[in-house]
């Protein structure tokens, strides 16, 4: 009896033991109040954000990481930005600055390494600005050649050299104060301005904010912590008085950056997945008490993970003032969130532990996908004018994304059906029946949301450019999902497929959905396409291949399935019943 309570409590306590130290502010040995420095609001890429975000996004862009490792020391992004903006001289080498000698750029392409005179044996892929700048002539020449080719027709090398050139320009723009627009409008009718421009035309001295910013940088360059901390505090007070909203949001964003809710949620999803898988194994080994106790533990951890995931989504909504899905990154985060929610519903209805497993697995995978989509820089970028409509973003986009989520969930359940059925003996008839019901129910839900979402998209298009349906690739992608779901439903109603047929078709739904979600963007056609990377194409093909393999497994003759219990239901009855629409 006691394990019913003890196991879940122990599971949650373990999770909290991991979580709490991560969320607490990290003590630093630095005397500089860099946390406060990071909260300074600036305007970059059209929105107001804290310097902390600028620092993290820039490092993500340059090297795919938010911290720098140098001689075994971990340097936070904001410290690097302080070094860069203050042009602090390197103590080791007075002819250069600290920032320029840190290895922040990651370069992997062999031809680029060759250009930089690095051989593969050296295993070097991180470079400092100084190291790259030494090759500026070669880089400029190569980039110049590549720029003459139309952007869409550039080869991998050309794309990368242009990328490297852009990266270096970005670095230089930062160090010259051209970006971000750091000087705030302290009176009405003013706009944000870049500090660099004001230093050039000499107006920086007479502007209170610009002078104050310069004082901060000077104090940091001189490594005078007392002066630096006072200057930052003064500056924050100054902007708070005139831009209270922006300052508050920038402060919250800094906190959000530090908390990394999606990272911690994904860690907890792994934990919940292990617990629930273990619980499921125990059920099959007929240890019901332990299985149930562990299952409850898994749900408890999942609730915790979902809670953190939710906080992350709500924070983004607050910071952006937008519905949850605004770009590819946020769609991945949202798909995971919806799948977890649907997983809870399934678990509530069936109590088999499968809903928990699916929720935890999809929650984790989608957050990993989101993380990999974030390397492009700011994940809260501004919207194109035509997309600037909270009403349609919150109806059409949310519906479509929920449709994606449900289709992926159905696909995951289909995979579960196939793998358990073919490889293990644990797919007992009642369990198989329940799984098949889940798949069916989720597909019905997916069909509803996808259809409504697609038509709402059409109505939005009618509202914004007078064409309900333009046969644009993204629209077609959405239509493919709807048609695919309708095929599954009608094939089932017509008894053309049985349990395992629905499972196999649901797995194919994963391919159709990933095509609509990512593949259509890769075509580079249409009004909906976002920018895209090569590695995404690779991952999509890999994913599609894996799904095809699972489908092939599912189509093995039913006599080869190790779960013998499901043979009867999936075999053709000698006289097929007359097809009816009411199933």
């Amino acid at each position: 009896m006691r394990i019913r309570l003890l196991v879940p409590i122990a599971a949650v306590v373990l999770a909290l033991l991991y979580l709490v130290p991560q969320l607490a502010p990290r003590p630093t040995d630095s005397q500089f109040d860099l946390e406060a420095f990071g909260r300074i609001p600036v305007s970059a890429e059209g929105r107001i954000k804290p310097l902390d975000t600028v620092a993290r996004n820039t490092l993500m862009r340059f090297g795919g990481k938010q911290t720098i490792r140098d001689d075994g020391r971990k340097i936070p992004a904001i410290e690097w930005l302080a070094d860069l903006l203050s042009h602090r001289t390197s103590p080791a080498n007075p002819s250069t600055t600290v920032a320029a000698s840190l290895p922040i750029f990651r370069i992997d392409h062999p031809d680029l390494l060759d250009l930089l005179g690095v051989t593969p044996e050296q295993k070097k892929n991180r470079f400092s600005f100084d190291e790259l700048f030494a090759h500026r002539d070669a880089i400029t020449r190569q980039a110049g050649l590549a720029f003459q080719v139309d952007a869409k027709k550039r080869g991998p090398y050309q794309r990368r050299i242009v990328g490297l050139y852009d990266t270096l320009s970005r670095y230089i723009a930062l160090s010259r104060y051209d970006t971000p627009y750091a000087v705030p409008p302290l009176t009405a009718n003013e706009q944000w301005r870049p500090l660099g421009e004001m230093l050039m035309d000499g107006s920086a001295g007479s502007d209170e904010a610009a002078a104050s910013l310069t004082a901060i940088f000077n104090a940091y360059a001189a490594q005078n912590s007392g002066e630096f901390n006072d200057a930052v505090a003064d500056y924050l007070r100054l902007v708070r008085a005139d831009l209270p909203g922006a300052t508050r949001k920038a402060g919250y964003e800094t906190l959000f950056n530090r908390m990394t809710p999606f990272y911690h949620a994904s860690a907890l999803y792994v934990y919940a997945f292990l617990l629930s898988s273990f619980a499921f194994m125990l059920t099959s080994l007929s240890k019901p008490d332990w299985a149930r106790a562990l299952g409850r533990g898994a749900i408890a951890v999942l609730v915790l993970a979902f809670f953190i995931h939710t906080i992350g989504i709500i924070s983004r909504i607050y910071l952006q003032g937008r519905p949850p899905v605004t770009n590819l990154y946020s769609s991945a985060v949202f798909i995971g969130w919806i799948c977890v929610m649907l997983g809870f519903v399934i678990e509530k209805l069936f109590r088999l532990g499968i809903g928990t497993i699916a929720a935890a697995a999809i929650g984790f995978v989608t957050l990993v996908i989101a993380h990999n989509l974030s390397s492009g820089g700011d994940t809260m970028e501004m919207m194109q004018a035509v997309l600037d409509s909270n009403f349609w973003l919150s109806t059409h986009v949310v519906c479509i994304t929920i449709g994606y989520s449900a289709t992926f969930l159905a696909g995951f359940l289909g995979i579960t059906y196939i793998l358990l059925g073919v490889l293990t003996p644990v797919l007992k008839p009642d369990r198989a029946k329940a799984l098949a019901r889940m798949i069916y129910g989720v597909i019905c839900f997916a069909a509803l949301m996808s259809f409504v979402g697609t038509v709402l998209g059409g109505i939005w298009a009618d509202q914004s450019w007078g064409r309900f349906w333009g046969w644009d690739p993204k629209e077609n992608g959405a239509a493919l999902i709807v048609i695919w779901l309708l095929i599954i439903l009608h094939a089932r109603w017509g008894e053309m497929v049985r349990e395992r047929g629905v499972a196999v078709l649901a797995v194919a739904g994963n391919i159709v959905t990933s095509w609509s979600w990512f593949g259509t963007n890769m075509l580079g056609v249409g009004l909906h396409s976002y920018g895209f990377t090569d590695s995404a194409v690779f991952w999509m093909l890999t994913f599609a291949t894996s799904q095809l393999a699972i489908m092939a497994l599912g189509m093995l003759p039913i006599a080869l399935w190790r779960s013998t219990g499901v043979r009867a239901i999936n075999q053709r009855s000698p006289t097929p019943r007359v097809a009816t629409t009411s199933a």
Partner: protein
Amino acid sequence: MTKWLKPIASLRFTVVLLSLSMVLVLAGTLAQVNHGVWTVVDDYFRSPLVYIKFQLFFPSTIQKIPGGILFPGGLTLGLLLMINLLAAHLVRFRFTWKRAGSLITHFGVIVLIIGEFVTGVAAKEGKMAIFEGGSSNFTEDNRSVELAIIDPSPTDHDRVTVIPGSKLAGARGALTDPRLPFGIRVEQWMPNSQILGPMQATPDQLARATDGLGTQMAATPAPQATGVDNKNDLPAAYVTLLDDSGPVGTYLATVWFTQPQTVTVGGKQYYLQLRFTRSYKPYTIHLIDFKHDKFVGTEMARNYSSLVRLEDPSRNVDRQVLIYMNHPLRYAGETFYQASFMEGDTGTVLQVVRNPGWMLPYVSCTLVTVGMLMHFGLRLTTFVRRQNR
């Protein structure tokens, strides 16, 4: 009757048709990498049959995949799906509350298919470009062109004769018409063209025209725009004007030239212009102000808006309207959308659409949503009740 209807009404037929639709939609998407969206829509989705090349399904790096397949187009599939759906409900029609949701859903789908059909047949799109402070009373359809011959001699109006571009494209020999003051022979027709300035064109290219702007600039054929470019074709033609005694001169007519050129035939002056097909309206729109806001420090558009004055003496209308993104103006069966702008933000481009079927998707969406909610909701509640028992 029922016996005959049964195969047409079968779910198996539904699944086959839906599967074919998937292939068609996929092919129609992939085809847009190399062809314009409108070509694809006409060839794939609004045609009875389409020849799908196998090459489509391979990346462009693997070239020369031979063969293809003749495939039912969107028109055929839409029609068959509709027949299948209607037949199914005829054969199995039996009203019960359990089936009400399904009935409503399918009715909504029929409305949607009809809507797309009406759009395909009846929708008209045009663009209205207006400079700030200027006005316009016509739209241009940038998917087709016309050659306009303008006779300015009547004192109170211009006498305009137009020849549709399709006629120029297929013209053999001289085009003559009693309404035309002279004959026209098409020397070369270019569905899409590139314009070469005086320094870029070779003397031979400039010699192709004997008079007018074509002696300073030349046009060469260009590949037709694809869905990827998101641009439209800019046609051009070399035309020779003929009077009773023979050729008067060869001119370059192209939509690249935004102003008409003067031509003199038989001592009389005319204007000649190849322009996007115009349709004139009973109302006039004046552009008072065009705004194009950007996000601070970026080139990214934050908003476009056109403040216009709508004047229609035939309906006693004279009012100001602000047209901006996601906020079109609906007037006299037409809808005006903020579509684009002129270089340097000097004017606006409005998309003007007349689509008698525009309401149908709204109706369909409502029906399908209600229908599916009823259908699946009923199932879910039955299921949950059984589960709790």
